[in-house]
Each structure stands twice: as C-alpha cells, then as structure tokens.
C-alpha cells in the first residue's frame, strides 16, 4: 500500500515470464471424521505467477474452501505442499491476506472500522505513523475514507466487505486469497466490488487467488480460470482468459469472446458435476481454440 500512491508498472504486463509466487503441488486433504474419512481434495497441482489474478471455480461442495484454508496455512494438508515464493507454508504466512465470504463474522463488531483495519498492522509492530497512513490509504482505496469511525454493523453488507478488503490491502500482502467474497452481496454491489478488485490488483501488483462459484465472475475477473472437479477434487481445466486487460461490466460481458469462455467454463463445470472429469486428463487446447499461446503459470495437473 505504500506504493499505492505511485502506480506500479510491472503489474499490467501479463505477457512476460514472471517468477512463481504460489505453488501448490499434489495437495490432498482427507477429513478424518472418526469412522469415516472424507477425501475433500484429492490431488491438486497448480501455480500462480507473481502478479497474476487467477480465479478458481468448481461445483459447490468441491472443496474450494478446504483448498483455500490449506493454502492460507490455516489447516494442514494431508499430503502435498504449498509454497509461497519457494518457502513451504505451514502456518499463516506474513505475506498473505485472506478475505472471507462471511464479512459479518470476519470483521470484529467490537472494533471500529479503523481499528479493524489497524489491528493486523499492530501485530506487525509497525510504527504508529506508518499504521495511520496505511489505514487511511486502504480505506480511501475502497471508498470508505469517511467511515473510519463507524462500526462494521452500522454499514451495509457491501461496505462491510469493502472494510474487509481494506484490511487485507493495508496488510500489504504479496498474495491475496479471496474465498467467495461477493457471494453474499446483491448483484449491483457485486459488480462494483468486482471492478474494485480489478482496480486494486492492477494498482498494487498483488497476486490474487479468487475462489468463486460464479462462472461469469470468474471469467470477468481472471487472467486465468482454474476449473475444479467435484469432490474428491482435482484441477479439471485451466482456461486462459484472453480478454483485454481493461474490463468493463457492460462491454466485456457483451464481448463474444467473453461468452465463448463462459460457455467453455460452464461446460467443464457441468462435466465436473456429472463426475466424468478425470483420469483421462484435460483438454489439450488450453486457450479455448484461439491463438494457442499458453502463457503464465502452466499447471500440469495429474
């Protein structure tokens, strides 16, 4: 966020070779519920390059949240590894922030908006002036500069999620994990928040992994869409979204290419639901039939 004032240039360049930021290898999670063990995630392998915005979609109950918690270091995986900049993740890493779907439960009602955003920075032992600056910039970035002294429960749902996003942004993470963050807000607010995420991502150069069940949202937001199979989960498809970087709720969603990509992801999800994803592997053509130039972050699954 310190760099927020001066725009960063590296982030919009999504063509060049970029170092790997987040690497998930053979991730497996089995919930051992006494007599019955449930395999939530079977074998997940993918990578995010530095500064990439990747969306993760899958049928409901496919273990998206489980995966995210493993990546965030909140839950130990049964097998496989998660690496952040080459270092294995075993506890919540200081370079990572998570935005949860349940903003109402993720924000602390006993703290003002300002205190909520500032708390993680206090834990980082940043000096007061720096904290104040970061909090102010983050709240300005999400358009809530005037609500610093309010309490979360005095705000609307969309505004509360903005506070949660501001808290994540002020933390200055290298990787931002978002777990269906807009699933509980209304459609108009949702469109605004989607654009907010695109704008913040471009401005801050942060690597974003955005989990959603909404196919349109995934295609609209992402540079890449990872489609997960139903449980037990593997990466079923990896779709590069070759839409222009400047996206707009009206024109982008009207774009023929947008429709093509959405159709493709939709078909994959349907296939995942039927459960005939699978062992036979993944489609050869990663870019969905147009100019096959697989770019950032190849993810050889399986």
């Amino acid at each position, binding site marked *: 966020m310190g760099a927020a004032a001066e725009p960063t240039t590296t982030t919009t360049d999504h063509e060049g070779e970029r170092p790997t930021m987040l690497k998930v290898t053979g991730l497996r999670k089995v919930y051992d519920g006494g007599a019955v063990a449930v395999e939530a995630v079977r074998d997940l392998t993918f990578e995010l390059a530095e500064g990439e915005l990747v969306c993760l979609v899958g049928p409901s109950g496919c273990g998206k949240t489980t995966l995210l*918690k493993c990546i965030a270091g909140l839950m130990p995986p049964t097998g496989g590894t998660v690496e952040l900049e080459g270092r294995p993740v075993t506890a919540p890493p*200081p370079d990572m922030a998570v935005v949860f779907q*349940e903003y109402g439960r*993720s924000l602390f009602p*006993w703290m003002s908006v300002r205190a909520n955003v500032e*708390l*993680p920075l206090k834990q980082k032992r940043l000096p007061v002036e720096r904290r104040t600056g970061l909090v102010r910039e983050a709240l300005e970035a999400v358009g809530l500069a005037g609500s610093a002294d309010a309490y979360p429960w*005095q705000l609307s749902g969309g505004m509360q999620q903005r506070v949660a996003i501001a808290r994540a942004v002020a933390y200055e993470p290298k990787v931002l994990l978002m777990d269906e963050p807009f699933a509980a807000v209304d459609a108009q607010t949702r469109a605004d928040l989607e654009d907010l995420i695109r704008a913040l991502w471009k401005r801050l150069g942060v690597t974003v992994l955005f989990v959603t069940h909404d196919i349109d949202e995934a295609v609209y937001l992402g540079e890449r869409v990872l489609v997960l199979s139903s449980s037990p989960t593997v990466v079923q498809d990896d779709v590069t979204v070759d839409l222009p970087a400047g996206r707009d709720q009206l024109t982008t969603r009207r774009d023929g290419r947008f429709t093509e990509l959405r159709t493709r992801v939709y078909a994959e999800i349907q296939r995942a639901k039927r459960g005939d994803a699978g062992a036979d592997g993944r489609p050869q053509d990663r870019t969905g039939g147009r100019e096959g130039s697989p770019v950032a972050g190849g993810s050889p699954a399986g």
Partner: protein
Amino acid sequence: MRRGPAVLTTGAAPPAVPAGGGARTRRAARAGPDRPLLGALGIAALLALWEAAPRLGAVSARHLPPASEVLATLAERAATAAFWTAVGDTLTGWALGLAIAFAAAVLLGLTLGSLPRVRAFTDSTVDFLRPIPSVALIPLAVLMYGTDLRSTLLLVVYASFWLLYIQVLYGVADVDPVAEQTARSYGLGRLARVRHVVWPTTLPYLMTGLRLAAAVALILSVTAQLVIGSPGLGREIAVAQSSGAVASVYALIVATGGLGVLVNTGVRALERRVLHWHASVRGEAAA
C-alpha cells in the same frame, strides 16, 4: 372503523425482532412517556397499601409497622455513623468477594476453556461443586475464620464464582471460527487472539454472569452477616430482631433492598457501556 385495530397491529413492532431496539420501540409505543410516571405511581400505591394495612388492622402493627414509621426509623438510622459503617462493611464484603470471584473465573475460564482436554477432565468436578449451596459452607467458614470478614468472603466468592465461571466457559466456546481464522491469518498469536477475539466474544456472557453474580454476592454478604455475625447490615438486622425493634428490622431490610437496586443499576450501566457494540445494546443502529 376497520382502521383502528389495523393501525394498532402495525404500531406494535413485529414480535420476531430479538432483544434490543425492537423491544424498546415496542415498549415505548405501548407505555409511551407515561412509563416513569406509572412506575412512581406503582411505588406510591404499594406504600399506601403498606401504610393502610396495619392502620386498618388488616395485619398486626406489631408485626408490620406502617410504612411511615419504618421510613422514619430508616431516616433516623441513616443519620448515625454506625448505619453507614454497616453499609460500608456489607459493600466491602460484596465488592471484594465479587472481585475475587471475577478475577478467578476469568483467569480459569479463559485458560481451561481453551484446553478442551483439561476442561473435560474438570467438567464433572465442576458439576458436582456448583450446586452446593453457599450457605452450606457457613459452619466451615465459622470454623476457619470465625466472624471475620473472610467468612463473608468465603460465602460470597463461592456463590458468585460458579455463575461467572460457567459464563466464561460458554463465551470461550462461542468464539466464531471465521473470526478466529481471520485473526490467525493476520498473524495474531495465541495471546493476541485471547485479547482481541476470545475476550470480546466472552464479554456479553461475562456481563450476564456479572449481573447475576452481583445480586447473589449481595445476598450472600447479608446472609453471612446475619447468620455468622460478621459486621454489616445483616448483623444489624439480627441485633434489631433480638432486641425486638421491629421497625428497625424493616428499615434495615428496606436498606438492603435499596442496595440491591443500586447494584443492579450500576451493573446495567456498566453493561451498556462495555457492550455498546453488541446486538443486545446497540438497538436500532444495527444494519
């Protein structure tokens, strides 16, 4: 003429609204600004009845002196230093006992509440100790401490500790997993999570416990003085009784009731202050 009842129904807030604002608006709508006035009238009616009953011979004035006589005795007593010493002693036993119980319950509750195995180990013991009536400890208290303040404290602490402790355990168990994960993902360590997540989550439970414990602590404080004879309002009542000063007995009982009201008002004010963010207090402001 259809409109009347319809408007009335709309006027009463929907019953589904939980505690807080809804209840307040509903009450306000029904009782309106007359509420304090009605309360005052109620007390006046009670005093009138109390005054009339012995005077009309409905009850023996020897067993229930009229209200005016009791209040006059209370005023008389309130002019003496001994009365205020007794009040001070009662409040000392109350406050000290409550404070000890509070500190112990919070400390133990936060610790044991976060250690499921230790908690399981102690649960049955707690279930056994908790229902023991504090007054059953009176002989023990006398054996150990005589008529000392410590006798009173033993009873007060024992009675109020369990009320607070159980509430802290409930509070700790109620910590929202999402809040907990949020705190962990932002690097809050164990102690920081206790301070910023567990403690605020526990507070509403703890305040409920405190309200109950504050009342019980006063009861036990007076009981100990009454039965054991340690200094305070309770002992004054016992002395008045044995010397046949019936009006004094009533006057002192009224004084203990007054203390009870004060204690309750105080705890409620504290609750509103401490839990200003909580759904039970914040009222209409909620989104």
